């Protein structure tokens, strides 16, 4: 069952078309990534889905409720975590959570229970009564996410939640998102970090210049582009001799000797690897190390848009 269904979203700011016909669905328990560089239209898209921004065209339905800037019912199904930290610095973590929980209509008992649960999840139970302007950046970032979860939304929208976060907090955030997916929450995750999208997302949409260029699982996207795997063999002996022997193996597209190693471009590295090692042994050239590089979303993005994700 789809928690989010959006179709044909369009939004222009004067002459700039920020979002141009974007549409996708997210099922319960699915983590969906919007992968694109800065200015690709990710934040505008999720602002429309969150009911913050009015679309010029298109439709958004969350848990069966249409979302616009004028509707309120469906918004209770959405947890929104903005890119910038959005908390009150002169309130404590508990006060921030209580305020937003009350806005989402949580009953007194449920709110008290959820505050305790969220503080535990984001690791701020011990600091719950400290003003948030006394927190570290990572703590504030975790609270920022916690507020989005206070009302147990069906759809959690995370807008680049790890920007400017230290590695430890970043890992903690990614683990939290992984947990949410397994708990049945639909997650819409925007990022321009390829490795985050690959780690977290069941499906990914590559967005650039306001349009979705491709959508699917990581494997589907890679296959869609016809990308090959790369195998790197560290050799003891003649790299040229081994390269010549491997060049004639089926599914090996190319074999190149490079300073004591051989680099192979192949289709389906994992299934081909035993055969490659057999050929190497037969050729009398020793292999001291093997590395496999699968094509990633970065290369897919480059292929689709002609530019790197961090451009």
């Amino acid at each position, binding site marked *: 069952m789809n928690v989010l269904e959006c179709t044909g979203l369009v939004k222009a700011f004067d002459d700039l078309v920020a979002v141009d016909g974007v549409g996708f669905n997210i099922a319960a328990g699915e983590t969906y990534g919007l992968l694109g560089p800065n200015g690709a239209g990710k934040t505008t898209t999720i602002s429309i889905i969150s*009911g913050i921004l009015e679309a010029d065209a298109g439709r958004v339905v969350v848990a069966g409720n249409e979302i616009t800037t004028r509707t309120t019912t469906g918004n209770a199904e959405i947890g929104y975590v903005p890119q910038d930290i959005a908390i009150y610095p002169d309130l404590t973590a508990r006060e921030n959570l209580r*305020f*937003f929980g009350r806005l989402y209509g949580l009953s007194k008992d449920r709110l008290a229970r959820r505050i305790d649960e969220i503080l535990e999840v984001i690791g701020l139970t011990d600091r719950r009564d400290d003003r948030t302007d006394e927190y570290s950046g990572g703590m504030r970032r975790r609270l920022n996410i916690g507020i989005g979860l206070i009302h147990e939304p069906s759809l959690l929208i995370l807008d680049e939640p790890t920007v400017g976060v230290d590695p430890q907090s970043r890992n903690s955030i990614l683990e939290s998102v992984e947990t949410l997916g397994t708990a049945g929450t639909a997650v819409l995750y925007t990022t321009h970090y390829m490795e985050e999208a690959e780690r977290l997302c069941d499906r990914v949409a590559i967005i650039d210049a306001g349009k979705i260029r491709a959508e699917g699982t990581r494997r589907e996207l890679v296959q869609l582009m016809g990308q090959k795997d790369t195998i790197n063999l560290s050799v003891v002996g003649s790299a040229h001799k081994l390269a010549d022997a491997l060049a004639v193996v089926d599914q090996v597209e190319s074999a190149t000797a490079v300073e004591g190693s051989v680099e192979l471009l192949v289709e389906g590295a994992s299934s081909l690897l035993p055969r490659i090692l057999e050929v190497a042994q037969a050729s009398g050239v020793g292999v001291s190390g093997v590395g496999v590089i699968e094509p990633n979303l970065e290369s897919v993005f480059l292929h689709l848009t002609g530019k790197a994700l961090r451009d």
Partner: protein
Amino acid sequence: MRPAFIIAGKDLSQRIRDKSAILLGLVAPLGLAFIFSVIIPDTTAGSFNIHVGVVDNDRGAIAAGFIDHVLPDVEAQGLVTVTRLGSVDRALSEVENGNLDAVYIFPEGYTESVQDGGGGTVRMVRNVDSSIAGQIAEAVLDGYLAEVDAVTVAIGAAVLSGGQDVEAIAARAAETPAAVVLADTDAADRTLDSTTFFAAGMAVFFLFFTVQFGVSSLLEERLYGTLPRLLGAPISRWSIIGGKAITSFVLGVVSMVMLAIGTTFLIGADWGNPVGVAILMMAGVLAALGIMAVVAVVARTPEQAANWQSIVAVVLGLMGGTFFPLSQGPRLLSMLSKLTPHAWFLQGLGDISSGAGLASVVAPSMAMLTFFVITVGAAVWFGKGRVLAP
């Protein structure tokens, strides 16, 4: 409405926590009201020109003595400017319009009545806003009439001295009706005493600083990044605006009420009928809220809003006569003061403080509510599509 009250509750707890609202809404006005009420009367006496008029329907010696000798002397000192008027109606009109601070009216047959021992009444009418000028004008007339009174009694005593004992003369003098009675019919009743004037003036002056905390907090929401969260919450957009307005209104009303109570008990201010004062306060708070909302809508950052709001608050406060009675200054300034809620608030308070009925606060309150309606309309117009943009 519930979300609006939740937002207002959060805002109010923030304002109480940072103490700035308490300082600007309570401590500063209370302190300044106390200082001004003590200092200003001593430092301003004689520092302005008083415009008085005189109507001589008597045409007798006593009136002539005052008009031809006393007033020219005082006028020569630069304290008073005298205008002779032909009729009582004209005189009352000039005072009512604020062209004169006070007018002396010598009735027909006054000199004759005094000389006959029958006494008489010189009428003096003061401008409602000319507290100090009115008191000085009254003192000038009082001094002259006291002399007239003494001379009259002395003449009577000399006439009676032959053959009568001293006790009989004293008894006759005591029984003689006062030769003159200063009838202060005015308007003096409708002026605020200086303590109440400065208490009310400071209260309405700082009110504009107090209410800005609510309306400007919308800009803080944007600064904190929390505005998109509010926009994404299952609440109407009007409840966000409503929450800010409630915050401003509560801060303003609480500040005014506490100042009224504080100045009453601490420095002896007399605010008058509580119901009338409450009506004026609420109208004043709404007017301040509307004006500060316009500034907040036009500004782009909390700092910019705070700067502009301070300028607006100070200019309107000075123009509205919160620091000194404008009737003592140029007439143009007095007229311009009506373009501020401050002047209407002080006028209404002057009426209610002097015991006038509740009806006397209707006009000032309506004037202040007009400010509210116009400025809120302007805020909505200027803020359309901008204020709640994510």
